[in-house]
């Protein structure tokens, strides 16, 4: 027994010493060795939840949240009431804008009602959810626990600052508090003010590397690249190498591969490999959108708007890192827009022009409101703008939205921001975009565009959603929800009610199509086509019908189906090209050209598309169109440069631009001196 006691004492001493070692190494920023010690410690004491929690906290601090979450989870298996483990999970979830964050924080408080950090986190989460009333309540609870609670004061001070009250009694005057304020301002897309808070944080605490990193990232977002790089490099050199810092530096390194085009109102940054091709399309569309919005929103921007187009989605993702919501296609930071390139997405899945108009709408709304606008409203207006340009643009009613309408999962307008920032189910962000867009459509339809403009101005003055609804629409948010939902349900009733049956019938039609039963396809597909007309994804009813009609030799009917498909917003390049071919065969070259022209907004990285469209425009006498398309062919290093230069020469000649025609002709013959058609034109020009 004495021996056993001695061993136990020795083990306890070793354990205490080892934990101390780990903590000491951690404090000395010797993270690798601290990690090794924790590993040994957990190995030696597999039932000690506390060691695992502490180790998890090290992982969380050193930018490995997934590993941290694993350790917190393991700790909870050992000790299901471990408050620190719940707090750890809450922090990991909060970082990912996961809706479980408040739930974990509450569990932490249940396990330990005096856990200040959990209470402070609840306050911050409420503020992130744009619920300042709840945030203040939670913060005051924290102050009851500890009158010096810095993060609670930071939340209360931030609420005042967000409401443009610079002199707040809550200002805790610490670096970490200002960093919190900066993060909340960025979340509210008030980047300039966020940057100011990060600067204040650094002023008070120069080694607060997380604030340096956030400062750098947000400067980069606003295209102030020199200072951004300096901040981020400083972080890196001081061992602060979290993913956003490292990836942003990497992204900035890749800027050498981009070309920048500037005009008086636009700055366009395109990757070298596609710059020549995309430049005319993007710049033309950008100018068109800016001109339209200038009239529509009634303001003139005081500086050029910058659009960055990323062919590698990973590069684009770095731009959106640490931001809530989808951020899947484009993102706006004040006057800077970052978006995917059409080449970065599978053909037919991305309408770049629709995304561009969406993002540019944000530029106007954010400018008009000085970034004081709820997320739901600016997103809703941007979605509304997509279909305002063309009903064929924008997103379609998708099965997730149908399910949400059916299951009554749409959020009340006063709470709609939550669906963007902290979704409670995986597709809630998509559903929230749809809902916000339809709300703006509804207001526009029922009250007119000027009412939406008035709402923008109300939000600019800091009014809340309920106040703005009450003031402009003369009803409570609850009454608005009722009216809106009645309208939406009436609009979507046929699709929502018929969706299940439609799904079964489509599967049957697909089977029939596979078996080559064309008559059966036509018999069964026609009645279901209009139940869910928005379904234009692969395997659409339109495609089945068109194939069946073609198999039966009925080209006019096939054309009609594909025209319906296009009108409903179908975007498959192959299907639209098929429609263009059928139209051309039917002698309708003008419409064929228009169909192909739509693809320029969807997948312009397609040599064949530009050649075909160039030929059609040329034949139709649209020489500017032909010139643009033939230039696009050449921008893609074509397989047959001689023919491509010759085509362009012909178009220039028809456009009465002889000098350009001659240049292209010589380039054609330089590539193929014996090219007979080009030789003939050369002889004609020389006579």
């Amino acid at each position, binding site marked *: 027994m004495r021996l056993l006691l001695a061993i136990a004492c020795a083990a306890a001493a070793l354990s205490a010493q080892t934990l101390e070692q780990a903590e000491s190494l951690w404090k000395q920023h010797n993270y690798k060795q601290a990690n090794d010690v924790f590993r040994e410690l957990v190995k030696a004491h597999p039932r000690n939840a506390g060691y695992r929690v502490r180790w998890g906290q090290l992982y969380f601090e050193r930018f490995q949240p997934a590993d941290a979450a694993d350790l917190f989870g393991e700790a909870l298996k050992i000790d299901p009431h471990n408050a620190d483990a719940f707090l750890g999970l809450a922090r990991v979830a909060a970082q990912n804008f996961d809706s479980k964050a408040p739930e974990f924080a509450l569990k932490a408080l249940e396990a330990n009602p005096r856990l200040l950090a959990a209470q402070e986190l609840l306050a911050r989460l409420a503020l992130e959810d744009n619920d300042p009333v709840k945030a203040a309540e939670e913060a005051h609870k924290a102050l009851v626990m500890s009158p010096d609670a810095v993060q609670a004061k930071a939340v209360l001070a931030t609420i005042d600052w967000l409401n443009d009250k610079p002199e707040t009694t809550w200002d805790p005057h610490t670096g970490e508090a200002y960093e919190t304020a900066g993060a909340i301002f960025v979340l509210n897309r008030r980047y300039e003010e966020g940057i100011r808070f990060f600067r204040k944080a650094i002023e008070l605490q120069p080694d607060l590397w997380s604030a340096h990193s956030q400062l750098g990232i947000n400067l980069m977002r606003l295209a102030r690249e020199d200072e951004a790089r300096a901040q981020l490099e400083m972080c890196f050199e001081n061992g602060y190498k979290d993913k956003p810092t490292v990836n942003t530096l990497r992204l900035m390194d890749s800027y050498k591969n981009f070309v920048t085009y500037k005009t008086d109102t636009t700055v366009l940054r395109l990757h070298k490999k596609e710059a020549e091709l995309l430049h005319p399309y993007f710049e033309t569309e950008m100018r068109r959108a800016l001109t339209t919005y200038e009239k529509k929103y009634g303001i003139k921007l005081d500086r050029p708007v910058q659009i960055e187009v990323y062919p590698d989605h990973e590069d684009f993702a770095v731009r959106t890192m640490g931001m809530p919501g989808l951020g899947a296609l484009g993102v706006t930071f004040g006057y800077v827009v970052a978006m995917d390139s059409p080449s970065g997405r*599978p*053909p037919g899945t991305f309408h770049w022009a629709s995304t561009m108009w969406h993002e540019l709408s944000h530029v106007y709304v954010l400018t008009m409101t000085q970034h004081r606008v709820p997320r739901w409203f600016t997103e809703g207006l941007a979605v509304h703008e997509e279909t305002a340009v063309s009903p064929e643009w924008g997103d379609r009613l998708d099965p997730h939205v149908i399910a949400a309408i059916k299951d009554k999962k749409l959020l009340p307008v006063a709470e709609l921001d939550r669906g963007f920032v902290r979704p409670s189910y995986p597709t809630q962000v998509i559903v929230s975009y749809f809902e916000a867009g339809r709300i703006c459509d509804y207001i526009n339809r029922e009250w007119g565009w000027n009412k939406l403009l008035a709402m923008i101005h109300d939000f600019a003055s800091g009014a809340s959603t309920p106040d703005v609804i009450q003031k402009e629409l003369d009803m409570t948010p609850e009454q608005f929800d009722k009216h809106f939902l009645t309208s939406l349900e009436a609009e979507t009733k046929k699709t929502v009610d018929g969706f299940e049956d439609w799904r079964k019938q489509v599967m049957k039609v697909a089977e029939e199509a596979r078996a080559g039963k064309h008559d059966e396809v036509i018999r069964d597909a026609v009645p279901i086509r209009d139940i869910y007309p928005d379904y234009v994804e692969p395997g659409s009813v339109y495609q089945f019908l068109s194939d069946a009609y073609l198999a039966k030799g009925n080209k006019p009917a096939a054309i009609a189906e594909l025209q319906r498909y296009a009108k409903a917003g179908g975007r498959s390049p192959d299907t639209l090209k098929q429609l263009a071919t059928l139209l051309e065969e039917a002698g309708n070259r003008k419409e064929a050209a228009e169909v192909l022209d739509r693809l320029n907004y969807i997948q312009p990285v*397609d*040599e064949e598309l530009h050649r075909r469209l160039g030929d059609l425009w040329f034949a139709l006498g649209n020489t500017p169109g032909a010139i643009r398309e033939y230039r696009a062919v050449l921008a893609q290093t074509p*397989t*047959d*440069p*001689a*023919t491509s230069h010759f085509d362009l020469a012909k178009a220039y000649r028809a456009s009465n631009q002889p000098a350009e025609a001659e240049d292209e002709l*010589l380039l054609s*013959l*330089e*590539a*193929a*001196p*014996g*090219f*007979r058609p*080009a*030789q*003939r034109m*050369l*002889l004609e020009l*020389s006579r």
Partner: protein
Amino acid sequence: MKALVLLLGAALSVRAATYYVTVSGLGGEPDYEQRFGMWAADIGKILKAGPDSADVHVETLVDGTREQVRAALDRVAKQAQPQDALVLMLIGHGSFDGVEYKINLPGPDLSAAELASLLDRIPASRQLVVNMTSSSGGSIDSLRRPNRVVIAATKTGTEKNATVFARYWVEALRDPAADTDKNDVVSALEAFRYADKKTAAFYESQKRLATEHAVLEDTGKGDAVRAPSPENGEGHLASTFPLLRIGAEANAAKDPARQELRAKKERLEQQIDKLKYDKASMAPEEYRKQLGELLLELARTQEALDK
């Protein structure tokens, strides 16, 4: 493509023939069986429909066995003369065990080494082997030989996924755009570049990682390369190897009355080639002026030839 014109000129007196043997191997599943057979059959049809079909001998073996391939190449070995050309095109699946490449055929497979020995017996001095199977890069070491162009759909034997290169090789024979210098002849190099570019575009458009990277070797001693060029010394023989004649050039070549004009045309073409070579060292305006003059003269000469 000057050397090609000279070769065509040389062909006037000796009536060189081209022997085409196309083999499609085992597909392993209906989709591949159908695809491989279709590509091989398409090649046969295109070659037979050419403007100088009297000088071409086309044999297509769909699902050909090793014995049938041996017999076909033996026939060519007996008929072909040194001035003739041989084009062997292989479609299907291949395998490579780190040492030996084999094309999968019904019954016993055929190794690259055996194929090389069959080809070596053929007297045709110019040979082109287009191995479009998976793992075809593993056959290059065995097939490489002076005066033989070897094209493989994959850069090594370890690229084992089914290939799409053959699809675009067929397209190169069908699409006039493959004739980039517009001399009415698709050379082996032009077809290679066309098919390679289209293959790369296929993977890009599908957002798939490319699992095949075609290569070419035509010096008989170098490494096969992805992008033949004067800098790496590859591609010269391929650029002068007429894979398919598609227009009037062949007929013009057979008309002795136009010899003087043809000689003038060749001189002009050589001058243009030289001028292009000197482009980097010339003032742009001067280059453009001289190029314009030469091209105009060439156009006039061609007009006279076409009358």
